[in-house]
C-alpha cells in the first residue's frame, strides 16, 4: 500500500515555481533511490521467452502479445511525476511500473488462476501478496522490505524541510 503524503502535490508545484534547483535535486534523488529496485526487477525478467510458443516469430499475427525480453526489460521503469487521480481520488506521486504488455503478463500470470498450461511454465518466483504479488517489480518490491519506500518518503520530507528552510513559505 502506498504511503499517503499530504500536500505533496503543493510541495512539488511550489518547488518547481520557487526552487527549481531543489525540485531537480529532489527528482534526481528519488530517481537514485528507485533505480536499484528497478534494475533488480529487470533482472527478474527472463532473458528469453519462458515458453517457446510465446516468443516473437516472423509470421505471428495473433493479438496476444509475444514476449520480447528487451521490450519487457525496458518496460520496467519508475515515475516521479504525479499521475491523474484515479476514480477513488488518489493521485500517485512516486511509482514503480511494469509498462510492457508481455512484461505485465509475466508479472501477474497465474495470480488469479494458478493452474493451467501457461502460468506454471513461466518459471520465476512470484512474491508478495494479493494485488502486490508478482514475478518482477512486485518481487523486487517485496524483497526490498520497505527500505526504498522509507527512503522515498524521507526524501520528500527532506525536500519539504529544505524548501521551508530556504523560503519559509511552505507549511
Amino acid at each position: 500500500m502506498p504511503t499517503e503524503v499530504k500536500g505533496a502535490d503543493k510541495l512539488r508545484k511550489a518547488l518547481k515555481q520557487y526552487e527549481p534547483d531543489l525540485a531537480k535535486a529532489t527528482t534526481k534523488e528519488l530517481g537514485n533511490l528507485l533505480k536499484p529496485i528497478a534494475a533488480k526487477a529487470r533482472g527478474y525478467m527472463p532473458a528469453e521467452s519462458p515458453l517457446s510458443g510465446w516468443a516473437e516469430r516472423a509470421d505471428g499475427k495473433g493479438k496476444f502479445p509475444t514476449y520480447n525480453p528487451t521490450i519487457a526489460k525496458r518496460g520496467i521503469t519508475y515515475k516521479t511525476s504525479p499521475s491523474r487521480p484515479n476514480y477513488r481520488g488518489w493521485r500517485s506521486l512516486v511509482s514503480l511500473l511494469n509498462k510492457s504488455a508481455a512484461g505485465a503478463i509475466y508479472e501477474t500470470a497465474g495470480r488469479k488462476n494458478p493452474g493451467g498450461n501457461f502460468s506454471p511454465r513461466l518459471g520465476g518466483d512470484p512474491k508478495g501478496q494479493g494485488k502486490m504479488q508478482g514475478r518482477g517489480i512486485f518481487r523486487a518490491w517485496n524483497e526490498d522490505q520497505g527500505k526504498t519506500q522509507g527512503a522515498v518518503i524521507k526524501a520528500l520530507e527532506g525536500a519539504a524541510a529544505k524548501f521551508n528552510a530556504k523560503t519559509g513559505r511552505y507549511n
Partner: protein
Amino acid sequence: MATNVKVDIAAEFVGRKAFNDAVKSTIGLNSQVKTLAKSYVGLFTVQRLGRAGFNAAKAFAADDKAARVLTQSLDNLGLAFADPSVKNFIADLEKQFGVLDDQLRPAFQRLLTTTGDVAKSQQLLRTALDLSAASGADVVSVAGDLSKAYVGQTRSLAKYGIGLTQAELKAMEFEEVQTRINDLFGGQAQISVDTYAGSLQRLSVAANNAKEIIGGGLLDALAALGGGGEGGLTNTLNLIEKTSTALATFVRRFGVGVGQLAALARGDLKAFRAIGEAEMNRGRDMSGITPAIRAELTKAAAEKAAAKNRTALLKTTKEQTKAIKEQTALTKAGTLFDIQQTQIIAALKGDISAEERKRLELQLAILTGNTSEASKLAGELAKSQGLSQQLAAYLASLPDAKNPFTAWKSYLDMIEAQVRRISTASPAPVTSMASGYGVTGTQYSLPNGSTQTSAAGVEFTVNVNAGSIIAQEGLQDVLRDTLLDASLSAKFAAIYRQGGSFGLPQ
C-alpha cells in the same frame, strides 16, 4: 500499452475535486432532466398536435394513393376481381412480417405488372420478403430485381450472393433461380420477425397504421365539417380558403386604417386620401387601356411568343439534325475502323514475316487504343528495324563474290592448246581405215564422239585408188555396197533399194 501493473510508493488523496465534479454533474443532469420534461410537455401542446395531425393525414393520403394505384393496376390488367384478395394478402403480410404496406404495395405492383399473374406475384413477393430479410435490401428493390429476372435480366440477382455466376444465371430458367433462392433464403423473413428487431419493426408498422387511421379520421372530420359526402372535403377547403382570404383582407385593411390614422394625426390629408384610394383601387386596372386594345395586345403577345417558340423549335431541329449527321459520320468512321481492323486481323492470319507481323499488331493496337501494347510493339518494331539495318550494313560490307567460272578459262585454254597441238602434229601413216578402198591421207586421232570442224580452213585431200571411181557418187556407191556386204543378211529393203524400188513387194 498502459497497464495497471505498478507499485505506488507515495500517493496523495485529491478526492475533493472529484466530488465537486460529481456535484456539478448531478446539478447539470437535473437541469437537463427538467428541460427534457418541459420538452415532453411541449409535445402535447396544440401546435404539436396540429403537426401530428397533419403528418397523420399526409400518411393516410399516401397510403390511400398507393392502394388506389394498385387497384388501378389490377383493373388495367383485367384482374379487378382480385383486388379484395390482394388487399387482404398485403394486410396479412404486413402483420405477419412487420413490413409496411407502403413498401409491400409498390413491390407487389412491380411484380404484378411484370408477371400479369396475381398468384405468381404473391409467390414472388414472399420470395422477395425472404431475400430482403436475408440481404438487408428493401423489399421494393428486391421485387424490382426479381421482376427483371423474370423477364430474363438476371444480372441484378448476382449481388444477393445466391452462389450462381452470371453465366449460370443467364443459362438457368427463372423457375430454377427462384427455387435456388427459396432453398437458400426460405424462411428468413419469418425468422427476422421473431427477433427483437423484427418486433420493433412490427411495432413501427402498428404505429404507422395508427397514424394512417388517425389521418383518415381527420380527413373524414374535415369532410364532415364541409357537409360530408363526396364534396364535403372540397367545401371545407373552400371554406378555409375563403376564411384565409377574409383574414388577409382584414389584416391588410387594418393596416390601411392604421396608416390613414397616422396620416390624419400628422394632418396630412393628401396622404390620408392617397392611402384610401390605393386600397379602393387595389386589383383594378388603372392603365386606361380599353378591353379591345388589351385583347389585341394579348393576341400580339401570343403571336410573338408563338413565333419565338417556332424559332426555338427550328433551332432545336437544326441542332438535332446536325447532331444526327455527326452521329452518322461517326458511325461511318466507326465502320471504317472496323474494316481496317478486319483487314489487319486477316493479314495477321497469313504467312508473313515476324517484322510484318509486328507492324500489323502495332497498327491493330493503335486502332483499338491499346496504348501499352502499342508502345511495346513500337519498341520491338524499332528494334527489329535496327536489326534489319545492321544486316544490310553487314551485307554491304561483304567483299565481292568470286566468279565460279574463272577456272574454266584456263581449262578451255588448255583444251585449245591441246587442239592446236594435235592439229600441228605430224600425221601418222594410215594403216587400216582406207587401205581396203585405196584411201590415202592423214589419219586423225580425235576424241571419242567428238566432231572435228575445220574452222581454220584445213583441207583434206583424199586420193581414191579404186579404179572405177571417178566421181563422188561412185565413192558413195562403193561405200554403201561395202556396208551392205558387211551386214547384209538378206535385208529386203536394201535389196529393193538396190533394185531401184523403195517399197515392199506387192
